[in-house]
């Protein structure tokens, strides 16, 4: 049997992953619900004063979104490993990193994009000033793909484990500290009336770097995990 072209393989993979997500669309809502719950808990703990909430809004939303994305990371390769299709991917004649990039892209589209979509709602709950909202959305748009890409490497390293929950968090945490610092930092700078372009540009630079390197690293990690 002659293998098809690489682009055909990528399209097939994208369509398959989208179809699978659509069939389990209830699960896809879990991260959203989680983020809303986390954000909703803060006013109960800190009191409902608008000034207090305004001060912590950007940081809280960022942490909530990162935790929600972290929660969904475990499912990135889980079902593929269980039904054996992950091994098929590794054995396929097409470049593994490219196929994994497709998988990560779908994962970002289905878990992180909805989180960005509800970010205005979360911002409203915490009285984030309207002027900061575009910066928050821009920072999230740059930070969530970074998280998906960095997270994918760690998931690939822990994929063979039966229970990887806590370990995955431990692996991802130190790697996303800079993302959190610059993402939330841009929002805080905007809120304080300071220039916020520099942290956003840094995030963009890392995103470009991660877009190139992370699929390669994920492929290498997956090969280690599945030998």
């Amino acid at each position, binding site marked *: 049997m002659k293998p098809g072209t690489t682009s055909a393989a990528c399209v097939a993979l994208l369509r398959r992953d989208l179809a699978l997500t659509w069939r389990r669309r209830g699960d896809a809502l879990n991260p959203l619900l989680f983020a809303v719950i986390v954000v909703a808990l803060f006013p109960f703990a800190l009191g409902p004063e608008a000034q207090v909430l305004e001060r912590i809004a950007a940081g809280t939303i960022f942490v909530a979104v990162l935790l929600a994305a972290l929660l969904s990371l475990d499912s990135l390769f889980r079902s593929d490993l269980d039904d054996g299709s992950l091994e098929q991917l590794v054995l396929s004649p097409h470049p593994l990193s490219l196929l994994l990039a497709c998988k990560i892209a779908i994962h970002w589209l289905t878990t992180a994009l909805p989180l960005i979509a509800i970010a205005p709602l979360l911002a409203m709950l915490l009285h984030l000033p309207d002027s900061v909202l575009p910066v928050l959305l821009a920072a999230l748009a740059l930070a969530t793909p970074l998280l998906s890409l960095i997270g994918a490497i760690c998931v690939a390293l822990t994929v063979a484990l039966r229970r990887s929950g806590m370990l995955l968090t*431990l692996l991802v945490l*130190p*790697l996303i500290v800079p993302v959190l610092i610059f993402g939330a*930092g841009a929002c805080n700078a905007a809120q304080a009336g300071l220039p916020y372009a520099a942290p956003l540009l840094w995030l963009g630079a890392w995103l470009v770097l991660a877009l190139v390197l992370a699929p390669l*690293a994920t492929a290498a990690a997956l090969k280690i995990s599945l030998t």
Partner: protein
Amino acid sequence: MNPLVLWFHKLGSPPYFYRFAGRFLPWLYAIALVSGAIGLYGGLVVAPADYQQGDSFRMIYVHVPCAWMSLFVYAFMAANAFVALVWRIKLSETLAMASAPVGAAFTFITLVTGSLWGKPMWGTWWTWDARLTSELVLLFLYLGVIGLYHAIEDVRQAARAAAFLALIGVVNLPIVHYSVVWWNTLHQGQTVSLMGQSKISQSMLWPLLTMAFATHVYFFASLLARARAALLALESGKDWVRAIALAQPTREASAHG
């Protein structure tokens, strides 16, 4: 073949390394202990009290060498991880994984002594100062490497996965450090430095360097001891390990036989 290269290849063989390390270990421990004792004596007794910080500055002699070691050990681990992944040398895997707990121990000491130093100097146990924060992230990286290594059942696969994580950490560490520095300037945090701007005097410096030397030697001693133990477990089916195990007088053996 060049005798040095030949020796290096021989060192890669586990039984040879086991015997070689066993011969050097007592010496390394002795050197570390003696130089550590001299360094501590110099630091606690000989060095004069600092004109600003008084006697509390004496914590420098454990804090700073351990902070240096936490980075040195990470670099050593990453170098071995690189060799292990590229050339698939079993000994490098063992060395990389053996250095992780030692590095974590040094990082932990750095954090605790930094906190103990911060209390009298800054009036607080913890500040989110750039260096302490980076050190905390470094501890998480070490714990991640150790955790991943112990979570995967197959030892060699675990070592390769953890080695890969260690290499990712190398890319991450400078990014973390510079982002934390940037974050600190944004938040106008404490910029007080424990070391001060003034030049350190000769009588204060030599105990510090001696301690740094002692911790380096100690690291290699602990590394060799851990690598020896790990090699025994890794090669438990091989003849040379059986010979060592049978030669070992055990309480169980005397009770049964």
